[in-house]
């Protein structure tokens, strides 16, 4: 039989990779991780400044996903998702105080970054609510619509998405389900997604969302509104041999 001594040291030559080889290896690992390439965030990443609401929420999801794999309690929507994206709110239109009723807030999201070939399993709009001082302790109805089509000479076409009822004194993240809007935005990628938010009192009067305690872009970074979308990868095509 062969020698029974300790295993001979590995003979394959150990050498440092050259710069170009390292770049090729990184590109290969990115491809395996399904990352299009090495994105360079436009501004220095928010993590280097005061943490923003979306990354904080996504970091929670990351830990929940890791616990999920280790048999932890499942989070809604997370079990079936392969990809979760948070969208930073780009523009905010206020149709409030100096306008006649109804008052509303509109948020726009850039959907061009949505990866092709992924099916949306759920989408949420998250907005922080502080206790509002008036009308004191009444019931408020918060409704969310998608701006399906804008018209120059008349009111935009709206598509109802969700309605939540809360107390004016409530505080915390309000989560509105906007999954129904995803059917359209997968069709026209290049169009921004417009979401419009209304607040009504119990007797049907429209109320300025800001007065109801709903925070918009002026809020501190850790409490700004954002959207989260859960995707399920369609069966990935066989990777081209490299």
């Amino acid at each position, binding site marked *: 039989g062969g020698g029974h001594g300790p295993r001979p040291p590995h003979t394959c030559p150990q050498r440092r990779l050259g710069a170009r080889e390292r770049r090729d290896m990184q590109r290969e690992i990115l491809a395996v991780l399904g990352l299009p390439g*090495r994105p360079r*965030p436009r501004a220095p990443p928010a993590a280097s400044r005061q943490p923003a609401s979306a990354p904080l929420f996504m970091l929670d999801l*990351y830990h929940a996903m890791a616990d999920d794999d280790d048999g932890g309690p499942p989070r809604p929507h997370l079990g079936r998702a392969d990809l979760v994206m948070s969208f930073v709110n780009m523009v905010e239109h206020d149709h409030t105080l100096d306008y006649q009723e109804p008052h509303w807030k509109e948020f726009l999201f850039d959907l061009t970054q949505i990866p092709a070939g992924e099916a949306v399993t759920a989408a949420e709009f998250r907005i922080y609510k502080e206790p509002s001082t008036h009308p004191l302790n009444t019931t408020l109805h918060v409704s969310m619509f998608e701006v399906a089509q804008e018209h120059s000479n008349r009111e935009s076409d709206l598509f109802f998405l969700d309605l939540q009822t809360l107390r004016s004194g409530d505080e915390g993240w309000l989560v509105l389900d906007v999954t129904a809007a995803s059917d359209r935005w997968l069709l026209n990628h290049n169009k921004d997604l417009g979401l419009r938010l209304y607040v009504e009192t119990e007797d049907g009067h429209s109320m300025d969302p800001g007065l109801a305690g709903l925070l918009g872009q002026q809020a501190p970074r850790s409490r700004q509104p954002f959207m989260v979308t859960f995707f399920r990868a369609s069966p990935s095509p066989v990777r081209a041999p490299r």
Partner: protein
Amino acid sequence: AVRPLKRRQPKKTNELPHPNRLPGIFDDGHGSRGRDVCRRHELYVSFRDLGWLDWVIAPQGYSAYYCEGECAFPLDSCMNATNHAILQSLVHLMKPDVVPKACCAPTKLSATSVLYYDSSNNVILRKHRNMVVKACGCH
């Protein structure tokens, strides 16, 4: 004509030869010629070494593991070998130049998740199924 008495065939035993009867087989995790038996080894993919921590929020890297080691007959329980691998290893003993040994490969894989920024500063959480080796075996 009287049919010649059939010589009784020796009773075929179907248990495998006991490992210690074959030369060079140790049961301390080393196969023949002192090589490691098939098992899982640590492989750490460090995002820090790749210089990605300016856009990957979490993790800093992850243990992917890899399988290496010999699938030398007999394939004992720690190799969680398939029946086919046991057969292949037997046939390899008879025809080593024609049939290769069974190979050491993952038998159980799990997912890993990566959290990172895209070029619009959106935050993306991607789950990669079958990215981490949980167990190895002979196939």
